[in-house]
C-alpha cells in the first residue's frame, strides 16, 4: 500500500496510484489525482466525465463501458482522450476515485 500526498490531500492508493477508499474522494482529491495524469486544470468538461464515472461506480460498483461514457456525456471518443491523455481506464477512472480496472489494463 502506498500513500499519495499533494498539498492538503493525503490518501491511500495502490501501487498503480488508484484510490483504496472511495469514500474519502472529494473534488480536491480529484484535482490532486489529476496532476498525476497530466491534467493540471479540471475544466467543466473534465468534471462532466468524472462525475458520470463516479455516479456509475457508486451505483454499480464497476466502471461503465466506454460506450456509456461517450453516450451519457455526449463526448466523442477522441474528446475523452484529449481530456485524459492516458485514456478512460487509467486516466479518467483514476481521477474519479475508482479502483483499478481488472485485467489487461
Amino acid at each position, binding site marked *: 500500500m502506498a500513500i499519495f500526498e499533494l498539498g492538503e490531500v493525503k490518501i491511500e492508493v495502490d*501501487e498503480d496510484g488508484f484510490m483504496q477508499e472511495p469514500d474519502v474522494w472529494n473534488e480536491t482529491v480529484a484535482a490532486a489525482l489529476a496532476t498525476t495524469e497530466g491534467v493540471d486544470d479540471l475544466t467543466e468538461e473534465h468534471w462532466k466525465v468524472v462525475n458520470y464515472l463516479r455516479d456509475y461506480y457508486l451505483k454499480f460498483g*464497476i466502471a461503465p463501458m*466506454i460506450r456509456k461514457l461517450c*453516450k451519457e456525456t455526449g463526448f466523442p471518443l477522441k474528446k475523452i482522450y484529449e481530456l485524459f491523455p492516458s485514456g478512460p*481506464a*487509467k486516466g479518467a477512472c483514476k481521477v474519479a476515485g475508482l479502483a483499478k480496472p*481488472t*485485467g*489487461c*489494463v
Partner: protein
Amino acid sequence: MAMSEKAKEFNQLFKERLNRQHVLSLTACAHCGMCNDSCHYFLADNDPKMTPAAKADSIRGIYKGHYDWLGKIVPFWVGSRQVKTDEDLERLKDVVFGSCTGCRRCTINCPFGVDMAGIVSLTRSCLVDVEVAPEGVLTVMKDQWETGNQMAVSKEDYLETLEWLEEEVQMELDDADFKVPIDKEGSDFVFVINPREVKYAPLSLQAAFKIFHVAGLDWTMPSEGWDNTNFGLFSGKADLGGHMGNLAYNHAKQLGVNRMVISECGHGFLSTKWEAPNWGKANPLPFEMISILELMVDLINTGTIILDPKKNPLPVTYHDPCNLSRSSGLTEEPRFCLKRSCLDFREMIPNRADSYCCTGGGGAMSMAEYAKKRLSVAKKKADQIRETGAAIVTTACHNCVDGLSDLIKHYDLKYEINGKSMWLPVKNVCELVADAIVIPMELPKRKPRVKEIVKPVKVLVIDDQPDIVDYLEALLQDNGYEVITAHDGDEGIEKAKADRPDLITLDVSMPGKSGVTVFHELRNTPTFEDIPIFIVTGVVDFRQLMYQKTVEAPEGFMQKPINPEVFLMTVDRLTDRTRQKVAVEESGKPA
C-alpha cells in the same frame, strides 16, 4: 517444523504437474551467466538475485528437494530448498509473479534453451491452486470462468458497443451501408478480440472495422466466444486455458467460418493459436487461425487496400510483443504494414526476437502489488524508446499498449507537437493502417480470398571464414531474413545467379577469386547489376580500390569486427528499397 497445509498441497501439485520439459529446464542450467544480460529485471540495477538463473534456482531447489538424492541428504550442497511454510510460498509468489513476465528473452540466449516461462508457469499453476497469487490474477480467472471474458462484460453491453461502433464507422466513412455483422453463418472469417477493446479502448476495433469494410471482406463478429485473451496462460492453469479456447472454437465451428482472425493481442494470439487447442484437446480444428497483422499484409500485398503513408507523417517506432516476436515469429508483418502506412519508421534497438519486454507481460498489468517494481525495471525499455526520437509508439498487443503507456508516463517521455508537449501515444498497428487507407470512390463489393505471407528478404553471405559465415547467417535468420551462404568467390557468383538474392554481403580478401573480382563480375552482368552489395571486410585499403573502378560503388560498406546493430541497420536500409520495389511491381500501385 510442521509443514503448513498449503505447502503440503503445493508440493503434491508440483510433483504431479512436473513434466519432461520442466525437468530438462530444471536440470540443464550450468549457471554460466549467459542469461543475465537478457533480463530487464536484472539490467535495471544489476541485482544478482534478479538474474534468470537465480530466480530459476528458487524453483530448481524444490525439484532437487524432491528428486535429487544429494538434495535429500545434503540439501545445502546442491541448493535444494524445501517449501514448508506459507512464508516460503509468499516468497515464491514474489519470484514467479513479481519478478518474471515470462518473456523468454533469457531462453533464446541460453545455450541449453532453458524454458524459464515454462517452469514459472508450472510454479504459478501450483500457487494459484493454493490461492497464493496476486488478487488481480484470481479475479480475472474467476471472471473468465464465470462470464467467458476477462472483464466480465455482459452480452448486452458487448452487443450494444458493437452497434455503437457501427454508427461511429458509418459517420467516419459517411457510408450508411456499413454494418457490423453478428454471427453471420458461412462468413470467410470471424474476428476475436481483447475485452479491453470493447470495455475501454475501442479505437483499434473501429480501425479494424474500417479496414474490413474498405477491403470489402466477408466477416463477422461472434456473439459469444469473442474473447481471445486467456488467463490460463498467465496462471499456468490448462483447464481454464482449454475452456477459454473452446468457447471461441466452438462458436466459430457453429458459424462455419474458414478462418479465425485474432486481433492485436500478444498472449491472446499465442494462447488461441498455439496453446489452447492442446489445453482444450480441440485439434483438429476446421478453420485456420491468423493474426490481423497477417490479414493486413495480404490486403496490402494484393492491392485490396491502398495506403498513403503521407497521412502519417510523424516518426513512428514499433515495439515487438514477446508473444508475437519471440514465441510466434511474427516480426516482419507489422513492419511491412507500418513501413507502408507512415513516412518515417524507426527501429528500436534491439528489436524483433531480441526485443525487451514492455514490462507489463505475463499478466503483470493485473498485479497492482508489483506495479512499482515493474516501473522501476522499465528503464531499459524507456531508454530504448527515447533513443528512437519517435512521436508515436506502435505495438501489436493491447497489453503492451498499457505497459508502454505506463512507463512512458513514469519516465516522462514526451514529444512536442504544435508547441504542446505530450506523452507519447501508444497505438496498435491497425490504427495506423486505417489512418493511411485511401478510401476509393466506390467501395468494393468483391470478396477476395488471399493466402499469402510476406516474402522474406533473401541475403547471400559470401565470406571465406566459416565462423563469420555462421555468425552472419544466425544473425540474419534471427532477424527474419532468408540466408544463402557461399564460402568463396566462385560459389558466390554461382549462387547469386541461381538464387537471385535481394542483397549480397561480400568479403574482400578471399583465396581464389577475390571480393573485388566478384564485385566487378556481378556489376558487369546484365540483370544482376542492380542487386545491392554490402562490403564487409577487415582490409580497409581495398575499399579505395573498389571505388576507383568504373562501375557503380557498393551500396554499403563495413569494417570488421562486425557490430551487429550497425550491420543489421545497413542490411535493413539496403533491402527496404527492394521490398518497396517488389510491392510496387506486385500491386501495380504505389506502396
